[in-house]
């Protein structure tokens, strides 16, 4: 009888894991494979057991002669587009923004959600910003939304008057064209993020025809502007046609800054700095950058990046087994609420934001032991009081809860069991940016569950210790997941794993085994038993910081890196992160890089 080994040996996991550095990339930036002898961190030099806390060698290197790719005509993400349309309403009728947005939301809801696609070699992950597709459904939905907004903004004489001034509603028609042109110059310029010249203003004014301030005419102008290429995309012409790499205009630069850090168009001060050209002066630019990085709007981008980097949306709903006797018995008094999942995700995002906004570092984020749970359920998991806004976040009650890796969102499953494989892959791939070969097509990917007298760990080990599975699982995937087996499927600390029958009766209570060799770096054979050890090792290796650099690059550039071309910027971010610069300064690196301030015309 032929077994799974056959197919596995042909198509599946090779046991290879590597950091994504330049050495294992093909000419197009796709992985070209790695030596079977390579292991975690092996491409970064040897692990020194006498100095185990030494950082691994940097992952990225700069080739000053390399030419980074330019993302052509970037499309606003769905989030950015929504914020832009809201700004368009707010600029016109600030007091009615929320009401009008609520009315047009059914149209905007049809705009497709950006799809996340994993980077080559990763099995999961990816960023919404990667989705640069141009699709019919997008065009259809934004058109309908633009029409709806235009109709709302021009729905009454009062609104026209508020939006355009009394010139739009007075008895005189002599000033109508001027009235419209003035409106276009101010409103449309902001929406389209550029200073409209006379030809532009004439172009859009002509759409109104010979009744420049009639509601129907103004609505047509508004709808056209909201669908214009300068609204839906970041259109950049540069300022020097003679150069292949052309400096951006002040407006283009302001637009890059605001969308990157705030997910929305420039605000008034930034617009002013663009309008008067002061943004192009380094001192003013730095001042604006500092203002941007200390503004609460920054959280929009930080939340999105952290959410997608750490794949928080993979946390399953926690309340779907509420009527299951076994799960009820397992959860006891802590049966998850419908909001528990979102609260766990918010806890991670709260950590990231709190660390960043308080001047904290990447290490501080990894090691942060504060609870940001504002609800009683998740704070109950952490055995602390709910966090109240304006007060210091409480510390985790248990020293076993070491930081990011032990936050409930990274542990919970919504079942009575844990997911060591999932946890292990998350640490390997998302936290350390190490790749693991895909499982063979016929891999039994059913979640191993504790049964009889075997813990979840034992079930995982039994499932994955044979045949081709062992190559990846035994030494690479499973160990980081085993170390956090001291937390159950709801993220609660435990020393024993209780097993239940279908009726919810306890059939066994077995001690959990958290010992494993996570081998964060190749050659590191230290046995660990606590999450704090794993966290410490990850932290001191520098690989978490390098991984942050990689992911921030992807988020910032809306694309997967090509190390040969992008090594300089990647290296700068990595250096900042590894030097334990404040996270805000790490974020700043991108905006200070010359590539951010210029466009490459390929």
């Amino acid at each position, binding site marked *: 009888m032929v077994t799974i080994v056959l197919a596995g040996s042909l198509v599946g996991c090779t046991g290879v894991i590597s950091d994504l550095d330049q050495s294992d990339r093909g000419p197009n930036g796709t992985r070209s494979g790695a030596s079977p002898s390579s292991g975690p961190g092996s491409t970064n030099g040897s692990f020194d057991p006498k100095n185990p806390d030494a950082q691994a060698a940097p992952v990225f290197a700069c080739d000053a002669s390399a030419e980074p790719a330019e993302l052509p005509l970037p*499309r606003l993400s769905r989030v950015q587009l929504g914020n832009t349309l809201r700004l368009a309403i707010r600029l016109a009728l600030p007091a009615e923004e929320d009401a009008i947005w609520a009315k047009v939301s059914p149209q905007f809801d049809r705009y497709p959600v950006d799809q996340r696609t994993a980077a080559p070699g990763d099995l999961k992950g990816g960023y919404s910003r990667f989705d640069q597709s141009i699709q019919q459904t997008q065009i259809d939905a934004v058109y309908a939304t633009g029409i709806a907004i235009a109709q709302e903004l021009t729905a009454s004489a009062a609104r026209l008057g508020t939006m355009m001034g009394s010139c739009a509603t007075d008895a005189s028609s002599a000033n109508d064209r001027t009235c419209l042109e003035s409106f276009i110059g101010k409103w449309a310029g902001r929406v389209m993020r550029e200073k409209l010249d006379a030809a532009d203003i004439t172009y859009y004014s002509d759409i109104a025809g010979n009744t420049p301030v009639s509601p129907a005419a103004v609505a047509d102008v508004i709808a056209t502007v909201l669908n214009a290429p300068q609204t839906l995309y970041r259109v950049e012409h540069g300022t020097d046609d003679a150069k292949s790499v052309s400096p951006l205009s002040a407006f283009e630069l302001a637009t890059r800054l605001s969308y990157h850090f705030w997910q929305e168009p420039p605000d008034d001060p930034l617009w002013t700095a663009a309008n008067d050209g002061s943004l192009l002066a380094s001192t003013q630019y730095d001042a604006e950058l500092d203002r941007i990085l200390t503004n609460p709007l920054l959280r929009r981008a930080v939340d999105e990046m952290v959410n997608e980097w750490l794949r928080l949306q993979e946390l399953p709903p926690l309340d779907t087994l509420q009527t299951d006797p076994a799960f009820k018995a397992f959860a006891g008094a802590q049966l998850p609420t419908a909001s528990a999942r979102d609260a766990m995700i918010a806890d991670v995002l709260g950590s990231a934001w709190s660390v960043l906004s308080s001047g904290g570092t990447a290490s501080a984020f990894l090691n942060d032991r504060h609870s940001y749970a504002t609800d009683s359920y998740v704070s109950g998991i952490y055995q602390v009081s709910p966090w109240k806004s304006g007060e210091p976040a409480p510390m985790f009650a248990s020293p076993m809860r070491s930081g990011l890796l032990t936050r409930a969102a990274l542990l919970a499953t919504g079942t009575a069991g844990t997911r060591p494989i999932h946890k292990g892959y998350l640490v390997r791939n998302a936290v350390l940016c190490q790749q693991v070969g895909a499982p063979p097509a016929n891999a039994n990917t059913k979640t191993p569950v504790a049964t009889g007298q075997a813990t979840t760990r034992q079930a995982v080990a039994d499932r994955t210790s044979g045949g081709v599975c062992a190559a990846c699982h035994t030494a690479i995937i499973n160990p980081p997941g085993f170390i956090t087996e001291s937390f159950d499927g709801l993220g609660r600390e435990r020393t024993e794993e209780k097993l239940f029958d279908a009726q919810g009766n306890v059939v066994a209570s077995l001690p959990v085994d958290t010992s494993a060799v996570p081998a964060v770096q190749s050659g590191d054979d230290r046995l660990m038993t606590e999450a704090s050890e794993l966290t410490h090792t990850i932290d001191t290796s520098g690989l978490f910081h390098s991984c942050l650099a990689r992911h921030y690059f992807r988020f910032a550039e809306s694309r997967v890196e090509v190390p040969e071309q992008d090594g300089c910027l990647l290296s700068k971010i990595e250096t900042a992160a590894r030097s334990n610069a404040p996270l805000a300064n790490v974020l700043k690196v991108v905006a200070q890089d010359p590539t951010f301030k210029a466009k490459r015309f390929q």
Partner: protein
Amino acid sequence: VSSHPHLRAVDRRIFLRGMGGALLALPILPSLFRSKTALAQATQANKCFVHFRTPHGGVSTANMWPGDAALTEKMTYTHELRRGVLAASTSGNSSVISPVLSASSTVLTPSILAKMNILRGLDIPVAMAHNFGAPLGYYDVDHGTPKQPTATIDQVLAYSPAFYPSLGSVKRRSVAISASGSSSGSYGYRTAGVRSSGVSTGAISGTESAQNLFDTLLAGTMSSPATQNPRTPVVDRVLDSYKRLRDGTKRLSPEDKLRLDQHINAVAELQRGLKAPLAAGCVVPARPTSDSLSLRPMDGAPAKNIQFFTMINQVLAVAMNCGATRVVTFQIDENNQALTFTSRAAQGEDWHNNVAHTAAKTAPGQDLIKQFNQAFFSSVYMDLVSRLDGLPDGMGGSALDRSLVAWGQECGQVTHWAFSMPVITAGSAGGAIKTGSYCDYRNLNRRWGGDSSVGNEGELLWTGLIYNQWLTTVLQAMGVPASEWAETTHPGYGARVSFPSDFFAYSPGKPQTSDVYTDAMWQKTADVLPFLK
């Protein structure tokens, strides 16, 4: 009556009555066609293609297929093939082809049965594992990017001048039904309809809103209020604004311009759709008063799961009969849509991990898979089939007769493997394919003894014909010429994928992969599948 224990009995009359008769659109009048040629042209111009994709496959041999005794005919092709007349037995109020392929006798009637086919033994010869696009031709192994991305057949159809010789009343060339933010399984060219522009590796976006579909296809709510406003339509202005930038003097990179071209194409398509009138005689029912999306949350609520799709079917049947669209794809995925057609909730990946992956080895898992697929077949797939068959086409037939409504699955009888990818069809595409058959394309001399890890079902895997041939058959049935899909590596449609050369080393006879999926088989991928012509 559905045999599903949790489902309310549903029959065709109830559906039609529920629609108040308003769905009986009559877009085409027989008197318009005075010759056979004109009739044939009209048939070609109104063919519709619908494809349902369901997740995981994993329906066991016993649950999916009719018994081998039904295969009464044989023919020699690249290997011996078998066929039988498609038949159903009666069990209570149900007609039963197989445990999964069973439905109310009032729905799965002898007349409908004669318009259906069951195709077994169609393989994608690669370790396919999980995928979204494979049933339509985008072989996204393990949800990754294919080595050779291929536009799915629905998108080939949508932009084929042969399939759409006229776009007169077409509001949308194609419609995808899929969960927001997840893959629809449909992939088009980077520049819509332009094969040389390459295939986009981002799936086209779908919708799940019945009201949205109604507004887009039937209500015309996106149109400028032309009767009240004689102004130039805004869409014209928008289109011009893109051309102004594209052709202006301000500096853009070639790649910028390419993307502007893609956007211009989409705005032009929007413009065309907005201006397209509904076909003469098309009777549009009232806009649905509630939306399919309002049924959520519905995980673990099978009746709601079914209603969700029947609300969508209700709109699509009218839209297709009115010619507002002629290509529809459904991407049904229990995880992304949080539905299982059973009382057991999907719970994210729980269904995948604990149901689909146990289905080949354990009875409880297989029973859930059966429930899912039987409920889908009887109450979603057959619902649309029944609706279309109830709509006269004005030429003595029904909308179903000029359509091809297919059901494909993510995998074959064992989750992860793409051997014997099930294909169920209804409608003859205007007589382009023969119907009423149970076709078995497996090569019973080629058993793949590759996977004992999944239980006995893993030992019931035989290789067959190449799935590309089925997809090519669809394109040919829809009248699309080879120039729009033929490959250089084989004459049919789609990527020529392959297992490693020694993949069958443990099979009887230890053949090389090239001995199993022979070049001769690949050279026949442009043939209409045996028994269908």
